[in-house]
């Protein structure tokens, strides 16, 4: 099935094309919606189980493989279907924006990455696309790059999701190792045996961490509402309908082998329930339409994660239905919030009033989506809610009551977002408010209407979309048909109770919200504040560490390098038993001993004498001493070169010193001197030990002998040192001359530059 690989890769290839076309011809922008629409139809017609494999990195067992099954089809349809609406909407929403081409190109990039992630049949490939969605999300949240709020939100979203991604990568690698393959279909074919693997707990925890970060589970939920700094089409598309569900997707994808593990169930249900509760409270507290919707998205994501963690065919079906329902109404409500924001000039739920006469079509779309969200009878939302309650009724502990309370909260949010701005007396606005163009209304209206249509006729998607997806989560057919009425009287009571409780709270929300918003401790001690503190501590820590290790003191750098190199070498030498003394060879003559004493005295004097010229004399003593020592060792050439160089160096030194201030004494304090002396003695001791260890290794005279034998016959020279220099190692000598020349040139340039008055 080549079409399968073509879907993400061709979309990826379209990215530069989109940027170019929209930049040159802005009128093409709305027509870009044709791309996702065509992909939607393609995904709809592809057969179940279609697969495509291509070797990618065979040495690592990584394949470019894609596969379409019920779960990936559901996601691909949501991505392309909602994508079509969002592209159309965005072209109007940002029409005339100077960077529209960049926005739409990034949105295309995101769509390609998202499709790749849900179609990938290889875990590493999935990870690559997964990270690409994080990157696209970063670019889109920070689209209004001139606002610092958008920049920090983009950074926060990236940090959280990519940190989670790293954990997930570790989990993926472990999983590949445990299963012996990165292929998702092969891993799923192995069944539940993986859960008994000793690595299984690590795999579960690491992968769940990545999914929780991506899908904004408590306590990593805080980045999602901040991501509302993005333009509204992005909030609707990435941060409610698709990208944040990628974590849910992977959890659902890997559910079959792990679903019986207590750790898997506990993690998912625990994190999901905590997320639901936290999201519900924070949603009630919020008055900004977009942020309110974002918190309710957090609730929905928590609900989905909980449902996946419950091992029950009904829970799998409920998860799929709820996923679909949520994508439909939430994308629609976000787009409506964007319209209201753009037309009425505010997103504050407290101020928005009475827009129904001014924007009747928007009101209709909002009502459709809001009723589905609240779970009103007849809408598919009510089906989802019934399934949800049927699953929860049989659960132990507080879970049923959590479900009830959270659903009531969702009724309140639906009311505040979808009805409150449109009810009551018309509000004062700066400009006349009216319905937007059909390009912007199409998506919310269609999505809202779909909620009603599917609620009336669930059989449309029952066996084609819902059941295959649920079966993929469960790892076996569910045997559940949506046509049958789920649950008994208790479920009905819970549904009605949630509606009634929600309606009651909605009526009192205007008084409740300020009370909740007044709970400042939620901000002060929440994870968002913790993230801020963590980032500031990181920056402060980096500054402190840099100050410490890179304080700008050359002396410290040198001392640290010496300690590390010589300390490390000395320790290694001692630990490996490398300390050794060479076998006694030739004895030193009295003359050589005397010379050694002179050199030692010169070195000590160079350290002790304070006057500059005295130091130069001491250094000269050392140099000439070494030269004469060379002479006694049979190195006549060396000795003469040493004498020449030593004289030149001292002349130069005196010439330079004459231009420097004589009072430039060593500014070290006595304590510093003592420390430096101790360090220097240590370095000298380790150096001696290393040299002695080298000398204790038996000598191999092959090169020496060859040179002695080859000098006359091959190089026609009797002075072997000379022959080595100009013949055997002539290249070295060439390098030496080059160094000399470069040093001379550099010195000349410096002299000329520094000679000029500044």
């Amino acid at each position, binding site marked *: 099935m080549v079409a399968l690989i073509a879907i993400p890769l061709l979309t990826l290839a379209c990215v530069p094309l989109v940027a170019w076309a929209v930049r040159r011809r802005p009128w093409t922008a709305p027509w870009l919606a044709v791309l996702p629409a065509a992909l939607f139809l393609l995904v709809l017609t592809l057969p179940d189980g279609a697969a495509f494999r291509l070797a990618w990195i065979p040495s690592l067992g990584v394949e470019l493989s894609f596969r379409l099954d019920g779960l990936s089809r559901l996601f691909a349809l949501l991505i392309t279907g909602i994508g079509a609406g969002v592209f159309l909407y965005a072209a109007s929403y940002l029409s005339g924006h100077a960077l529209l081409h960049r926005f739409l190109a990034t949105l295309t990039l995101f769509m390609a990455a998202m499709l790749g992630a849900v179609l990938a049949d290889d875990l590493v490939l999935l990870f690559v696309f997964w990270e690409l969605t994080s990157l696209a999300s970063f670019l889109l949240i920070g689209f209004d790059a001139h606002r610092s*709020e958008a920049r920090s939100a983009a950074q926060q979203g990236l940090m959280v999701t990519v940190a989670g991604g790293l954990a997930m990568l570790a989990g993926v690698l472990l999983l590949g190792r445990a299963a012996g393959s990165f292929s998702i279909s092969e891993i799923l074919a192995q069944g539940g045996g993986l859960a008994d693997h000793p690595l299984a707990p690590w795999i579960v925890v690491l992968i769940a961490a990545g999914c929780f970060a991506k899908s904004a589970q408590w306590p990593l939920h805080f980045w999602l509402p901040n991501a509302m700094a993005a333009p509204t089409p992005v909030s609707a598309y990435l941060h409610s309908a698709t990208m944040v569900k990628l974590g849910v997707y992977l959890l659902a994808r890997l559910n079959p082998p792990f679903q019986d593990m207590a750790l898997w169930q506990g993690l998912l249900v625990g994190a999901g329930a905590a997320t639901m509760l936290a999201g519900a409270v924070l949603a009630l507290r919020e008055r900004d339409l977009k942020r309110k919707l974002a918190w309710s998205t957090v609730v929905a994501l928590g609900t989905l994660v909980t449902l996946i963690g419950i091992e029950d065919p009904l829970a799998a079906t409920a998860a799929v239905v709820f996923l679909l329902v949520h994508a439909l109404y939430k994308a629609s409500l976000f787009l409506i919030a964007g319209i209201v924001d753009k037309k009425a000039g505010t997103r504050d739920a407290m101020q928005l009033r009475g827009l129904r006469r001014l924007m009747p079509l928007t009101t209709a779309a909002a009502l459709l989506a809001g009723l589905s969200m609240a779970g009103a009878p007849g809408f598919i939302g009510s089906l989802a809610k019934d399934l949800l309650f049927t699953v929860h009724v049989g659960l132990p502990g507080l879970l049923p009551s959590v479900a009830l309370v959270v659903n009531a909260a969702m009724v309140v949010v639906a009311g505040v977002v979808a009805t409150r701005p449109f009810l009551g007396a018309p509000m004062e606005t700066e400009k006349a408010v009216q319905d937007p163009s059909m390009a912007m209304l199409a998506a919310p209206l269609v999505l809202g209407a779909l909620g009603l249509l599917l609620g009336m006729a669930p059989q449309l998607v029952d066996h084609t979309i819902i059941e295959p997806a649920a079966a993929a989560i469960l790892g076996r057919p569910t045997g559940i048909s949506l046509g049958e009425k789920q649950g008994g009287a208790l479920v009905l009571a819970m549904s009605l109770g949630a509606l009634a409780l929600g309606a009651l709270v909605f009526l009192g929300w205007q008084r409740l919200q300020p009370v909740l918003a007044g709970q400042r401790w939620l901000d002060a001690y929440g994870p968002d504040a913790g993230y801020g503190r963590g980032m500031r501590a990181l920056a402060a820590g980096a500054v402190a560490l840099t100050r410490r290790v890179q304080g700008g003191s050359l002396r410290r750098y040198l001392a640290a390098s010496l300690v590390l190199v010589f300390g490390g070498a000395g320790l290694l030498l001692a630990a490996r038993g490398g300390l050794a003394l060479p076998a006694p060879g030739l004895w030193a003559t009295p003359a050589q001993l005397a010379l050694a004493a002179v050199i030692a005295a010169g070195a000590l004097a160079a350290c002790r004498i304070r006057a500059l010229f005295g130091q130069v004399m001491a250094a000269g003593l050392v140099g000439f001493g070494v030269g004469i020592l060379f002479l006694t060792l049979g190195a006549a050439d060396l000795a003469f070169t040493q004498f020449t160089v030593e004289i030149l160096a001292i002349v130069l030194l005196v010439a330079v010193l004459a231009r420097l201030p004589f009072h430039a004494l060593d500014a070290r304090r006595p304590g510093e001197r003592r420390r430096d*002396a101790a360090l220097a003695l240590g370095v000298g001791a380790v150096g001696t030990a290393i040299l002695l260890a080298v000398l204790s290794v038996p000598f191999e005279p092959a090169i020496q002998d060859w040179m002695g034998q080859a000098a006359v016959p091959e190089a026609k020279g009797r002075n072997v040192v000379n022959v080595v220099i100009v013949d055997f190692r002539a290249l070295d000598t060439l390098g030496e001359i080059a160094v000399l020349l470069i040093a001379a040139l550099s010195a000349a340039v*410096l002299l000329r530059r520094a000679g000029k008055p500044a």
Partner: protein
Amino acid sequence: METLLALLFGLLLAAACYLLLARSLPRVIIGLLLLGNAANLAIIAAGRVAGTAPPLVERGAQALAAGASNPLPQALVLTAIVISFALTAFVMVLAWATWRSEATLDPEALRRAEPAALPSTDKQEAAEAEARP
């Protein structure tokens, strides 16, 4: 003999390090000079002192006689002496240029590339965080 050379090497190395750490550029230069000598002694020692006759092939002979010193380390040190002279000469000029432009010879005061006080970023971060609603 080799042991004596090794001890001498260690002593010169220690003196060189002590001078390199000094807070006075002329002393650092002298440290460099001593360091060069120390390295040369180490190379000669590593070639062993088996004989002390100069490595010259006798007239009429075809190969070096036994008892001649090792020619290879001598050739290496010859190169090293010249290079360390070039380095020292360049560093001397550098020190003079530094004095001309910075008016100090204390390495601790040479902070143009890395100022002693780095600008702090955390206050700015905190201000940004407060500005967020």
